[in-house]
């Protein structure tokens, strides 16, 4: 049973639809006790980092962190990946989970922002999430802030700077792009998460 955490930021239909297509047992919830009862947790999110404030005020943050600490497979998508870091210059007043070191920052001024479209993955190390995904595959991005490349980064993309595209550490996974919108490559990544057994 996979819980997609709904904290009031944006449209979660596409994420749910992709998991449904893969035959996963998945549901969207905004209730901390339902998140606590799930086997796997997906934290999606689009838009401004301050939207993550919706996690803090509802008990969802604690429910997600408890699940993560208990070793449940966790997948952060877009803002969900950024949440794993300490915070973001986009909304300094909101703290990330601080599971990964570093802060999210805007793109350098030499490129247009936001970064919207298909960019390629540069694989940095062994990746469970990218199993069966060809090197240099393309994925769909839409974001204005980016997370630094850290030890947990298993793939990066480049847009003015190199940033974390995929992070993985033990039961914790994050992708900056939108796998639910990245065609067969994205579906493969979501299937790998569904099959992640820890």
């Amino acid at each position, binding site marked *: 049973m996979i819980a997609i955490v709904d904290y009031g*930021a*944006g*449209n979660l*239909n*596409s994420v749910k*639809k*992709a998991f449904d*297509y893969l035959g996963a047992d998945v549901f969207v919830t905004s209730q901390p006790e339902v998140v606590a009862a799930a086997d796997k947790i997906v934290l999606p999110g*689009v*838009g*401004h980092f301050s*939207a993550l404030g919706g996690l803090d005020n509802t008990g969802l943050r604690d429910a997600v962190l408890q699940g993560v600490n208990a070793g449940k497979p966790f997948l952060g998508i877009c803002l969900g990946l950024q949440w794993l870091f300490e915070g973001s210059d986009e909304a300094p007043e909101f703290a990330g989970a601080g599971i990964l070191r570093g802060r999210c920052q805007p793109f350098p001024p*030499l*490129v*247009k*922002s*936001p*970064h*919207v*479209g*298909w*960019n*390629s993955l540069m694989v940095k190390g062994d990746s469970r999430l990218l199993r069966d995904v060809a090197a*240099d595959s*393309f994925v*769909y*991005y*839409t*974001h204005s802030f980016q997370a630094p490349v850290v030890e947990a980064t298993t793939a990066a*993309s*480049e*847009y*003015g700077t190199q940033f974390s595209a995929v992070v993985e550490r033990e039961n914790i996974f994050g992708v900056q792009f*939108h796998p*639910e*919108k*990245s*065609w*067969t490559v*994205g*579906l493969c990544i979501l299937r790998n998460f569904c099959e992640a057994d820890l």
Partner: protein
Amino acid sequence: MRPICENHQVLTKRIIACLDVDDGRVVKGVQFVNLLDAGDPAECAAAHARDGADEIVLLDITATSDKRTTMLDVVSRTARGLFIPFTVGGGIRELSDAEAVFEAGADKIAINSAAVKDPALIGKIAARFGSQAVVVSIDARRVNGGFEVFVAGGRTPTGRDALQWAREAADCGAGEILLTSMDRDGTRSGFDCALVQMVADAVSIPVIASGGAGSAQDFIDVFRNGRADAALAASIFHFGIENIGQLKLELRAANVPVRWPC
């Protein structure tokens, strides 16, 4: 194979297939009239995705002029099984219309007439769904040496300047601009590169060029000279004049970075 890098970036140029839908069928007009039938929207969208389209846009082209809301059943049927970005426009007049379209499975909405009438609508939808989900569609026509904005499917002139409106839309929270040259629409005589470049240089958000696609060279020109981030076409794809896979091979040969293989 890696795309060719320009300015240290490997963000690719997007090829977007547009479905102009009227009464539940994909149609395509020449300069916004004389509609021809091109098939079922869900089937067309799936076929374009398989051919290598980077994104699908569905425009309910008579929603505003008929004063009705978007055909939600068509949206939901098209969205099912489509795992690339999917934008829906036509007939979205207020936040609740946008909510219904997102609920039906759209990833982004395109607003045109309603945004001109009430620019605050852009910010309202962006606040709820994120700027990335709000595409402001601008239909522009050359008038007296400038570009004038038209609404209601190109039926109504507004007296507004296209460049000024694009800037304002971006400031209001639009995530992308879908810029259609009404002069070129359906003519297959090439994109209006001057119009596209003017807007692309003036805003930091992506600009999707539309209207006039007829050949691979037109796409090369609008990416190089027009500095478009994406280019949209309808009739040349539906009627199989240009295969998207073949188009991407030609773009690659011209060193335009595209998603490949796709």
